[in-house]
């Protein structure tokens, strides 16, 4: 069949051949244009990190300033805090969002009843499909002064015979890390476990049976069979996450910030947004973004390299 078509095509004139392919190129054209305009053109815009960009002078008219903008990044008030916050917030959230989905996948895998398994999965996926704004709305309500959190705390304090004063946890910057950690975990735990469950599904069931015969308990089977089965997946996910060490989820941080704690909880992302789009310091904010992008690229390459050396697993 294949050969027949090939010969048919060879017999056609060159013009017909091109015309036929022309259609294919025309079909590709819109996609190529969209990617060119919305993905490649902005890359050229990174050049303004090396310019003193002035809206009135335009892109071409603004003078080049070399690395000036990168130097002045370090003089932004609150930049040090933002860098430290970014690292702390991201490392803690990455760690939590790496470990707990694996634990959940293992727990779900240990359930024998099919419908219970399915129900738990479906319910735990729910937060993933909601927007960060809804999640923030839930959090504000749960932790409101008259909300469930404060009333439970009051009851617990009362049990020990102590007085409790209802407080708004969002007003204190020291709570911000826990807020990010737990809200992030709540939103992602179920959905992130999907990929591990898929890996566990691939395990040869006879391994478990053999382990049964050898008299292995449940914990031992998890340790020796289930965990090794998800090792590769876990390492790949970890490498990809390490690239995120310099970026904290903007929607989440910006969403949970309020004027009382803004200065103390800024991250590189929120500073870039406030300086750039809100403040009009385009060159500075672009330099900040470029700096962040570069560091995360380096981090991913390094993590990949180390993992290849140690475990022979990599994304490239």
């Amino acid at each position, binding site marked *: 069949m294949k050969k027949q078509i090939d010969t*048919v*095509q060879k017999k056609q004139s060159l013009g017909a051949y091109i015309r*036929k*392919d022309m259609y*294919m*190129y025309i079909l*590709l054209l*819109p*996609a190529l244009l*969209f*990617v060119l305009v*919305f*993905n490649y*053109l*902005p*890359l*050229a*815009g990174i050049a*303004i990190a090396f310019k003193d*960009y002035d809206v009135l002078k335009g892109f071409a008219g603004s003078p080049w300033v070399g690395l000036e903008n990168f130097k002045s990044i370090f003089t932004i008030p609150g930049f040090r805090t933002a860098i430290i916050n970014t690292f702390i917030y991201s490392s803690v959230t990455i760690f939590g969002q790496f470990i707990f989905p694996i634990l959940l996948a293992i*727990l779900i895998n*240990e*359930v024998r009843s099919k419908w219970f398994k399915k129900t*738990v999965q479906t*319910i*735990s996926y*729910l937060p993933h*499909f*909601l*927007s960060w*704004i*809804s999640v923030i*709305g*839930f*959090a*504000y*309500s*749960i932790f*409101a002064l*008259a909300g*469930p959190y404060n*009333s439970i705390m009051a009851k617990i304090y009362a049990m020990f015979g102590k007085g409790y004063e209802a407080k708004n946890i969002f007003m204190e910057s020291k709570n911000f890390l826990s807020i990010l950690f737990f809200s992030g975990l*709540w939103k992602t*735990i179920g*959905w992130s476990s999907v990929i591990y469950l*898929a890996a566990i599904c691939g395990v040869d069931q006879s391994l478990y049976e053999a382990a049964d015969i050898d008299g292995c*308990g*449940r*914990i031992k089977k998890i340790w020796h069979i289930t965990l090794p089965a998800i090792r590769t997946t876990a390492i790949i996910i970890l490498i990809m996450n390490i690239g995120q060490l310099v970026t904290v989820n*903007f*929607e989440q941080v*910006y*969403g949970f910030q309020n004027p009382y704690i803004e200065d103390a909880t800024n991250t590189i992302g929120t500073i*870039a*947004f406030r300086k*750039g*789009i809100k403040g009009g310091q*385009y060159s500075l*904010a672009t330099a900040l*973004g470029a700096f962040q992008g570069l560091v995360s690229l380096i981090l991913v390459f390094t993590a990949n390299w180390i993992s290849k050396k140690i475990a022979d697993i990599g994304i490239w």
Partner: protein
Amino acid sequence: MKKTRGDRIFDTIVIVLLLILCVLCLYPFLNQVAISFNEGMDSAKGGITIFPRKFTTENYKELLFNKGYGYGRAFMITVSRAFLNMVISNIVMFAAAYALTRKRLKGRKAFTTFFVIPMYLQAGVIPIYILYRYLGLIDNFWVYVLPFSFAFYSMVIIRSFIQEIPPSLEESALIDGANEITVLFKIILPLSLPVLATVSLWILVGQWNDWTSTLYYITDKKLYPLQYLMMQIIKEGDQQRQVAVLEAQGADASTKTTTEAVKAAMIVSTSLPIIMVYPFLQKYFVKGVTLGAVKE
């Protein structure tokens, strides 16, 4: 095998932990549903769990019909951007995916590489913002649609689907004298409807939940989508809006709603469409996740 006592304890611990997780996932939503159907003044006293104490639909009426909130307009914006994005994306991505399955197409590899690179190299918010200014997309409805028209990952999903259509179907049509465009519309398109439906659902959920586009590129209140409206109502307690809301209430100030109760109605009404459809969608989404490494 016989269950040992250790086994039974183990099973119980697993089930209890998973039940706790389920409660934690569901409770916040159910709590908001209860508050949204409860009289605002009563909710302010606290203690609402998952059932309303003094049932009312006043909060929803206030949210939907008080012009100060602008709910109707925001709803229309959300629906139209989602619909337009779905239509445009499907056409653009399906066309590209089909062209890339043609084995004799010259430059296939190069095109794919061209599409892949942006996954690793991103310009950041500001260069994009400046570009949009040049393109006139700032404060323009189309900023919600055009930049989302092509998603590499979805295109790859469509492409792998088309590749799995038996080639014999196509070949026999070609032998019968049909050209490739006819094959595209008469054979490939009808067979690809399931994958296009899947991708459309991804687009709809993404569009429904997006609010950062508005934060970055829109200042015109008339262009606010539901999520952004919700962000403002929840986060900022927007002064101007409160004035507008009070004005619209006018002399009829006997209303029993509070900002908190209307917030709850907002959260519930905005999340509800997603909550109602996601159990049916999840298997498609799971398929997308577990397809794993992008097949070249």
